[in-house]
């Protein structure tokens, strides 16, 4: 592949990781301070349950989505867009670099950072109070699942980042809400069309029908395979298709971007 070189990808990764390192350090200091403060205060109140997953979760998702939304910001800034687009590297290499930095890079970086900060916080707790919360374990199934879900869902924000000139994070969220509302309306209208014979005033009253089916076991036999099929399709779409589709859209958009 003439338009892909590991060397150039490495150079782009180095550049993307080093870009804005000051802001990253400031954000890390602020988050680190907040985590230590919350950890110490909750230990003071003797709330010694597991708090670290609850703290890491927003850092991973909200922080990651914001970082992802900012990743292609330079594309639309005066002067910077020209600089970035003429930097020797193919669109594929540039896209892969941003993807790796904001997905795996951010997930692993935040995991490493949070493990260190939470360990420090718990160390402080134990020095001050002689006790503390359970240490944050980055290798639990729950944490690894969260990281995997992040890698999939951040792809949507990558599309937003390359599409929107300004306020990509807010606009992506608004579009997701809009998508949710449209989907709800479509489902509601479809349900109304299918079940309108069971309408009781403005609502659909399926209870008598369902009870009858339930008693006969017909409901179980009909609906369970359907529901399982639906869940299977939804899982395949989420784990297998959602992120790649978003990546392809982002890459094509980057390739088509003019400055």
């Amino acid at each position: 592949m003439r338009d892909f070189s590991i060397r150039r990808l490495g150079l782009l990764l180095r550049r993307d990781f080093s870009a804005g390192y000051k802001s990253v350090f400031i954000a890390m200091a602020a988050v680190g301070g907040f985590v230590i403060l919350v950890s110490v205060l909750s230990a003071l109140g003797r709330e010694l349950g597991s708090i670290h997953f609850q703290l890491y979760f927003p850092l991973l998702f909200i922080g990651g989505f914001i970082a992802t939304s900012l990743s292609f910001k330079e594309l639309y800034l005066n002067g910077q867009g020209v600089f970035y687009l003429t930097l020797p590297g193919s669109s594929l290499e540039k896209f892969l670099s941003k993807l790796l930095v904001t997905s795996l890079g951010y997930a692993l970086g935040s995991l490493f950072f949070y493990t260190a900060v939470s360990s420090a916080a718990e160390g402080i707790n134990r020095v001050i109070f002689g006790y503390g919360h359970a240490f944050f374990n980055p290798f639990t199934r729950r944490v690894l699942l969260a990281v995997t879900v992040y890698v999939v869902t951040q792809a949507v924000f990558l599309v937003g980042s390359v599409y929107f000139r300004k306020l990509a994070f807010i606009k992506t969220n608004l579009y997701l809400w809009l998508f949710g509302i449209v989907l709800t309306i479509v489902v509601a209208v479809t349900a109304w069309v299918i079940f309108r014979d069971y309408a009781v005033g403005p609502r659909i009253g399926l209870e008598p029908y369902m009870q009858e089916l339930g008693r006969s076991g017909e409901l179980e036999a009909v609906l369970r395979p359907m529901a399982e099929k639906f869940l299977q399709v939804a899982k395949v779409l989420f784990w297998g298709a959602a992120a790649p589709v978003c990546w392809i859209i982002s890459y094509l958009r980057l390739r088509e971007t003019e400055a």
Partner: protein
Amino acid sequence: MTDTGIEIKNLSFGYTKELLFSNLDLTLELGNIYGLLGKNGAGKTSLLKLICGLRFPEAGSCSVLGREPKYRPAALLEDIYFLPEEFYAPAISSELYQQLYAPFYPRFNPEAFQEYLREFDLRGGKKLSEFSYGQKKKFLLAFGLATRCRLLLLDEPTNGLDIPSKSQFRKLLARAGEEDRIILISTHQVRDMENLIDPIIILDEGAIIFQQPMYEVTRCLHVGLEQVQPSGDGVLYTDKTLGGYVVVRKNVSGEETQADLETLFNTVIANRDRIGELFAPVGKEEV
């Protein structure tokens, strides 16, 4: 053509439904420092952007060093350095800039870069964001020259440079003109480019109305200073100046006179239709 220059054929491009360029043809060959002149809004910057793949043509073809810039292939970008009028200089030290960006250009020459920086009187250890506008521009020019790219696109390169820097810029660029390189300079500051750019390309209302080497200009045009403002068909352009009138006529005597770029530009713009008859068809007499 040739995988060695720029060939634009029947190119159409516009920002709105009204096209800026319609069926534009242009051929540029290696080994020249081209000057791209034109009025505001003539399309000079758009042309540079089309050449380096920042804008895509709506029709026609554009081939740069044997590749289509539209796809921004990495191998082509490694050979193009574009310094726009509104440039970007990140808030990092000059040393870090070199570390981060020089490896993108396989033929980058670090010794030459240091030499250019010295000639521009730029010292290291400072962040680029702490440089003045002119210093940033000089830094990026030095970097661009050191990349040894085969295509150097400079948009208004002397804007913001002080007088000594303009002179240094001319010297460096004259040295940088190599046989396997095209330097294309878009500028309004024609006086800064005197004796540097050759051939001259004049873009007007989205069309190349003039593309000639300076020897052709000297051969075809006669420039003189006259006390009385002349009139008549033989006069192409007159301009009142200190001590009389600069008068441009068709060169029938064969005498060699030197037209400055400003006079040449004004002559061409004032004689869009006649100038084509005086010179050989655009691009055919290219050196």
